[in-house]
């Protein structure tokens, strides 16, 4: 896979994603430019599965036979079944195993896998994923070691320092450049090349580039956390105040109008809020609020190389000023909403209880809401955009998400890679994400019947292609802290919006310059 073609395709896909071409188009585009040198083509019996009997055009894109360094041949065939309506493309991977002969039992390799999601409520891992994988790779044994999310980096670093790290780790994409720049994580390019994977083919255009740093891929994405910033509204409240429950605000002007309309004041006190503009993602994340609104405002955060700041402009200023303005207008000041920005997620509780009508949270909120408040009648759509800026349009940023990688010092790279691939690009991803009812990083899995029971699923899915990957810097967590602190200072009335933006940009530049100077 040449570096140049890789780059152009990546850029092309970004544009494609940005323009909102559906996943089907993207997949077809990417498939056209395919010329993989290491695929041996042989005539083998191949099984085709046509999912529905609609007028279809079946394109067999490739038939590959790989010599897995084991005693088996895996025949892999991909059948893309195109239906006439573009949004209903079904992609299936048929893996057929032809076990030739077993010359000698290979010694079992234990792959230690650490992740933070496998809680008590996630039986899928034991029941589906690990058995499914071990049936394919009988010589690999997966050892699942659950760790705590809050302490995950402590544990990873401690193990790396002690020379005893696991083989596969779950890692936030916002941390990938930080690990990569320090050599803390193993590049996957060689494995990807050897397996002949085309990432653009497999994942959402907004997802996979986040696992890379300086054009080297370090992790593969697990979920579509791309949509960190989605707009949720309470349809019942909309109906109650005479708004159309199925028409959410799409612009900032409409947002302000509707938020004011759904706000209830009693005796000078607000008893129901329309919207907390700076509250995002479990509260207490004013850093996210700057980033979250920066993109619908029509702005950017960083340059493509993640070396310089782009948010220090009129759009950034408008973003900051607008947020402060909204807090004054909608909530009568920061004091009234600060209490909801806490560790226990009071804003969620307020939303469930009808005390808050609209809020911004990521894709995961769908599953969370269904579990916490099954009776709530809510809708989901993209973030409202700034209609005073002619260049702004509905779009969403993604600079974080969950992915899998292999830490420095991992013992079983080959086997770890197989597991990593199964977890991200393979069936393991669908099993895991489908059970959580969260969108997968692989577009085709999001069409799976597993999700169809959710009435809001198609609404949610339609937002995902709007997501663009924003460049991630190697000092991302520090920058987040700066953004959070400065936004909070402004909201508390300690500094003006102009000072806030200048200070954010100044400190961010300093952090970036300091880091790149030290390289």
């Amino acid at each position, binding site marked *: 896979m040449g570096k140049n073609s890789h780059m152009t395709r990546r850029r092309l896909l970004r544009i494609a994603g940005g323009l909102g071409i559906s996943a089907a188009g993207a997949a077809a585009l990417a498939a056209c430019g395919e010329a993989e040198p290491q695929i041996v083509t042989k005539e083998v019996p191949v099984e085709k599965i046509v999912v529905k009997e609609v007028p279809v055009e079946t394109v067999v894109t490739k038939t590959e036979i790989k010599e897995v360094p084991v005693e088996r041949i895996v025949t892999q065939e991909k059948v893309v079944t195109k239906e006439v309506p573009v949004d209903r493309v079904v992609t299936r991977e048929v893996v057929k195993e032809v076990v030739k002969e077993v010359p000698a039992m290979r010694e079992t390799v234990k792959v230690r896998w650490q992740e933070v999601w496998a809680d008590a409520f996630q039986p899928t891992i034991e029941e589906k994923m690990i058995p499914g994988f071990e049936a394919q790779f009988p010589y690999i044994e997966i050892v699942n070691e659950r760790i705590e999310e*809050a302490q995950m*980096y*402590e544990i990873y*670093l401690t193990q*790396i*320092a002690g020379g005893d790290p696991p083989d596969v780790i779950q890692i936030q994409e916002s941390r990938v450049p*930080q*690990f990569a720049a*320090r*050599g*803390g994580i193993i590049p996957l390019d060689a494995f990807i090349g050897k397996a002949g994977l085309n990432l653009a083919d497999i994942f959402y255009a907004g997802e996979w580039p986040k696992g890379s740093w300086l054009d080297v891929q370090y992790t593969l994405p697990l979920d579509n956390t791309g949509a960190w910033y989605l707009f949720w509204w309470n349809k019942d409240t909309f109906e109650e105040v005479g708004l159309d429950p199925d028409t959410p605000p799409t612009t900032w002007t409409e947002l302000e109008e509707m938020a004011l309309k759904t706000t209830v004041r009693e005796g000078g006190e607000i008893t129901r809020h329309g919207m907390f503009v700076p509250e995002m993602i479990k509260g*207490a994340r004013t850093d996210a609020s700057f980033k979250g609104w920066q993109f619908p405002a029509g702005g950017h955060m960083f340059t493509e190389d993640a070396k310089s700041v782009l948010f220090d402009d009129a759009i950034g200023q408008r973003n900051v000023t607008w947020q402060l303005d909204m807090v004054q207008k909608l909530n009568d000041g920061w004091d009234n909403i*600060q*209490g*909801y*920005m*806490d*560790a*226990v997620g*009071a804003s969620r*509780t*307020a939303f469930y209880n009808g005390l808050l009508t609209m809020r911004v949270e990521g894709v995961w909120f769908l599953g969370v809401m269904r579990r916490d408040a099954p009776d709530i009648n809510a809708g989901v759509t993209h973030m409202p955009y700034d209609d005073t800026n002619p260049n702004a349009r509905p779009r969403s940023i993604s600079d974080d998400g969950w992915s899998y990688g292999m830490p*420095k010092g991992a013992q079983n790279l080959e086997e770890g890679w197989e597991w990593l691939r199964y977890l991200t690009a393979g069936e393991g991803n669908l099993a895991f994400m489908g059970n959580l009812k969260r969108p997968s990083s692989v577009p085709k899995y999001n069409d799976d019947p597993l999700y169809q029971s959710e009435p809001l699923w198609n609404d949610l899915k339609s937002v995902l292609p709007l997501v663009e990957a924003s460049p991630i810097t190697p*000092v991302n*967590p*520090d920058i987040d*802290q700066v953004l959070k*602190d400065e936004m*909070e*200072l402004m909201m*508390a009335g*300690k500094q003006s919006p102009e000072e806030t933006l200048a200070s954010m940009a100044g400190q961010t530049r300093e952090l970036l310059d300091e880091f790149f100077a030290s390289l």
Partner: protein
Amino acid sequence: MRAPRWTIGRREAVWGFVFIAPWILGFVIFSLGPTVAIIAWGFTEYDILQAPTFAGLENFIEIFTDDEKFLKSLVNTAIYVGLLVPCQVVIGFLLAVLVNTKLPLASLFRAFYFLPTIMPLVVASIVWAWVLQPELGLLKFLLEDTMGIPTPRFMVDEYWSKPGIVILTVWSSIGVQMILFLAALQAVPPHLYEAAEIDGAGPLRKLLHVTIPLVSPTIFLVIIIGIINSFQVFTTAFVLTQGGPLDSTLFYVLYLWRKAFVSFEFGYASALATILFFIIMLLTALSFWVSRRLVHYEQPES
């Protein structure tokens, strides 16, 4: 049989070393290395992922000249310690006096007061987060919504966030202080009370002139442990406030944690840890020095 060859003092010293020998062994094997390593890493640039490089005094110079948050977090921590430790001593002592009785059911109450201590701190933190929640919390419901008494906005107000954490910490640790004082109260010989009664002392004078001097070693213990532990406050702030609002609960160790595991500046964090180590050490040594006059020990004058 060996006594004649040794002076009494020498014999006592040898026995002393025999008694502390297990600790010396453990200290050399398990404690010394890590502590020295942290102090040494303070002089390096180290991100754990790559080998450390020697940086001289760079970290310390930056901490003292170019780090607002260092000072801020140190002041926060000092205020917190100043609020918490007196509460622990006074409330712990009064509780112990209250339940130091043979009345029926008193044992149940002792267990009730100790119950919060058993609760895992993380669970306790979350429970208290809901109790003190300024908009939807239990306390606000009980006081403000039903009684109209204005409640402080504990976790979100710049000035009430530290008291909020102090309340939580007192609640969840007071059982420890109560137990220590209860144990100490047992060491007060009853004949001293009898003597005081004969002298016509009332309960208050017995408390002031007999009980408090005799439990003063435990008061000292509670203060020292309080200082050492509360200077390292981490979990509560980490779970509840993440340092906010406006850095008012950015405690020293929380800041250190951010440097180590968020920014990956472990060398810098080690330097911070070294400074904290010496601050606590200094305060402890100072307390020992002060305590010589104030604390009553059963020891012959020598």
